[in-house]
């Protein structure tokens, strides 16, 4: 799928040397919230999400010159955000292996450390259920449930077939329901 006209206009501003920073600021403003929430749901903590989000846009800045306009800009951005989030979680995992802890327990601890956390509230139970999912299923669930991303686009973000993504989402939904009903 080719790039949207709106993104084409933003990139045209970015391509001009004298308006490059303004063009990039407009791109950040357009996509920051969607990317932030995608990252936040994966890394849980706000400060961590902020760090990852900044790394994502710095990477985008460095590589935007080479962006091919035969792809959707936001698919490319989601791909970078997903990879950066997973790299961050991998680093956390390595650190916590030393202290014989587990990264998923770490994420749940971060969830519980949230000032608003209330174990009895359904929305927090849902977050705990999502965190209990395997990493890939968690990403698929978030992209479908919260971002309402079509499987076709998700397939491009995650380099996975649509069939596999549907199966993954199906398993995730079943597991979450079971977690909430039993929890």
């Amino acid at each position: 799928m080719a790039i949207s006209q709106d993104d084409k206009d933003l990139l045209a501003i970015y391509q001009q040397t004298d308006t490059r920073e303004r063009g990039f600021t407009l791109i950040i403003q357009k996509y920051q919230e969607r990317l932030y929430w995608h990252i936040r749901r994966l890394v849980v903590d706000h400060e961590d999400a902020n760090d990852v989000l900044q790394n994502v846009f710095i990477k985008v800045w460095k590589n935007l010159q080479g962006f091919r306009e035969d792809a959707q800009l936001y698919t490319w951005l989601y791909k970078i955000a997903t990879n950066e989030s997973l790299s961050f979680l991998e680093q956390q995992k390595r650190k916590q292996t030393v202290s014989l802890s587990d990264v998923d327990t770490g994420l749940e601890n971060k969830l519980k450390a949230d000032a608003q956390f209330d174990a009895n509230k359904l929305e927090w139970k849902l977050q705990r259920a999502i965190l209990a999912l395997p990493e890939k299923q968690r990403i698929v669930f978030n992209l479908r449930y919260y971002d309402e991303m079509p499987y076709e686009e998700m397939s491009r973000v995650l380099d996975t077939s649509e069939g596999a993504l549907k199966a993954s989402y199906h398993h995730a939904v079943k597991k979450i329901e079971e977690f909430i009903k039993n929890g």
Partner: protein
Amino acid sequence: MKKRKDIAEELQQIIPGSTWPAETPGYGVPDGYFEQLPGQIMQQIHAQQSAAVAEELDEMGPFLSQMPKQHPYAVPEGYFDTVPGQIMAAIPAANTAKVIPMPAGKGYWKWAVAASVTALIAISTLFFVTSNSTSSMEAQLAAISDQEMMDYLHTYTDDSDPIFANVSLPTSIRQEQYLTDDVPTSAIEQYLENSDLLSEVPSNE
């Protein structure tokens, strides 16, 4: 304009003498309609996508589909207003931290020289040590007489040693010469007492 004229001429050919109004009377569109149209269409597309996701979830997980779709996370007030500024401030640092590749060839040349010098020193040292130690060993061996060598071998080896597999020692120096039946037992005991060897054997008393 030409297109309109062509159409008017065409109409005159079909119904000669007829008059057709140039504009459609009475039709109008609200102000800004065409500016808003793309956004409205996109809204409808998104609504259809949301409906498809909701329908799918209803089939897969009816319990989950009844839950309000909201997450409990919060962000500091005004956070998103600060994000572009934070990123644009970090970009110069990220640019200066960029690794600049060394010019091709220059780096390799230095490494090649360093490796050659090291190899030359190592080979020279090895050659010097080897040749010195060999000549030194040969000189020492030349200074030892055949008799001394025989005595050494006689003292520290025996006939079963593989070193003698292809060597025939003169019988004059073979051990048997000294420990034959001709030597009386009393003489051996006398020798042991005199050499104090018996005292070296642990007593079991």
